[in-house]
């Protein structure tokens, strides 16, 4: 079958950012999650936390603004923002472990129907970096994961059981892919939205667990 268009990284980030509520404390993982920073509507005031020790930083720095002493969790240089605060790593993870992060967005390699998450071990290298993902995944009040719906060779990344090393068990609340928006519930995975031009059946075919189709399933909501 000819490849149909999927959501771009930016569109995924845009969709995820619609979940950000006014006043939330949000932590964004490396990759697509970091792009979310650009998309919440201006009527919302969001406090971004980065696990390397900053709350309420600004956007990515221009070369002129760049300062080695102000980076995000991905090592990218960012800007200051009024009301910013700085803290040590132990304090930062006190915040994270203590449940003070309202929403976390992480990239993912696999997610299971129970909401188990695997995102750290690089199988081809036999090693990987846990980083702050376990702490965040286990303790954020809400966890959204973003991913391509399938691997490069077309295999589902949403699976019955993760085969990769786990990051945390039963931690994911919502999955946003380049094909769908899925809620993780006690009853199973609920398909809420599908990418434009894709059918529910096509999404199911690329998803290992049986999806529960939301009665009001619709096209991915970008407004």
């Amino acid at each position, binding site marked *: 079958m000819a490849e149909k268009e999927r959501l771009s990284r930016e569109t995924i980030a845009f969709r995820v950012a619609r979940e950000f509520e006014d006043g939330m404390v949000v932590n964004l993982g490396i990759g697509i999650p970091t792009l979310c920073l650009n998309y919440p509507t201006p009527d919302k005031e969001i406090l971004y936390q980065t696990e390397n020790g900053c709350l309420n930083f600004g956007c990515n720095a221009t070369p002129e603004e760049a300062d080695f002493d102000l980076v995000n969790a991905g090592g990218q240089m960012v800007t200051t923002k009024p009301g910013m605060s700085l803290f040590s790593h132990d304090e930062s993870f006190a915040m994270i472990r203590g449940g003070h992060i309202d929403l976390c967005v992480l990239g993912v390699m696999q997610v299971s129907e129970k909401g188990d998450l695997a995102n750290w071990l690089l199988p081809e290298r036999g090693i990987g970096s846990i980083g702050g993902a376990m702490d965040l995944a286990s303790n954020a009040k809400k966890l959204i994961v973003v991913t391509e719906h399938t691997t490069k060779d077309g295999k589902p990344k949403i699976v019955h059981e993760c085969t990769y090393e786990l990051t*945390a068990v039963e931690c994911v609340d919502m999955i946003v892919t380049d094909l769908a928006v899925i809620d993780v519930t006690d009853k199973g995975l609920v398909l809420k939205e599908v990418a434009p031009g894709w059918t529910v059946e096509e999404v199911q075919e690329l998803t290992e667990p049986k999806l529960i189709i939301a009665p009001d399933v619709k096209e991915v909501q970008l407004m």
Partner: protein
Amino acid sequence: MPINKVVGSFDAAVKDFFDGATVLIGGFGTPGGCPSYLMEALGKQGAKDLTIVCNNVGFGKELMKVVAMFMKVPDWWYDGGELTNNRQVKKAIAAFPVLASPLLVSPFEKQLRDGEVEIDIVPQGTLAERIRAAKAGIGAFYCPVGPGTIVEKGKEVRVIDGRKHVLEYPIKADFGLIRAYKADRLGNLIYRGTSRTFNATMAGAAKVTIAEVDEVVEVGELDPESIVTPALYVDMVAVRPEEGRTQIVQKISKEEQLRK
């Protein structure tokens, strides 16, 4: 005698490092926050079979040429990767030993493949808390991070309030090498921006804490309300040469930008 923790050189600061020592290394994998001059001095000093405790294991000078494709790499940056290149490292206890990009295979990862070094991968927050536990005299703690994952292997797991917790122990170290911004002769420290990171966490957690700073100011110049690391956590302070200090670094950065 007035207390004076300032030592004359980075070489003097690391002269007592011994083979087999456990060393905390501050920072977060980027130039800011990295105790670069202490790293360089420890490379020269040559202590071997080190266990390094750090967020990132470091790139080393060679790989930094590739890193420069992704981020700004200043000349004075010298990280734990070079200790690995020097074959000084036996083991790393780290949260982020590997970068996803296949271009960025660190000296540590190469030696790991060859079975020459060991790794103990620890979630970042657990790493920070285990270091704090050593500083704060906590015998062990039950941590909700890691149950059901590789992290719980070989560890005691206990259900507390209906949730699984893994028992984690303090990481006790001989030396802590940290980057701060300014110090006074008593050892009070302030940091700059996100370079506080693991540096402030590690201050006071090892038997000997050595801080690398831009400047030593007069006692009383640091605002008591803003001191991040109180003097009693710091044993030695060494001052960067001018070309590594923040103001100069920022100035050069700006000039580079303007030339482009």
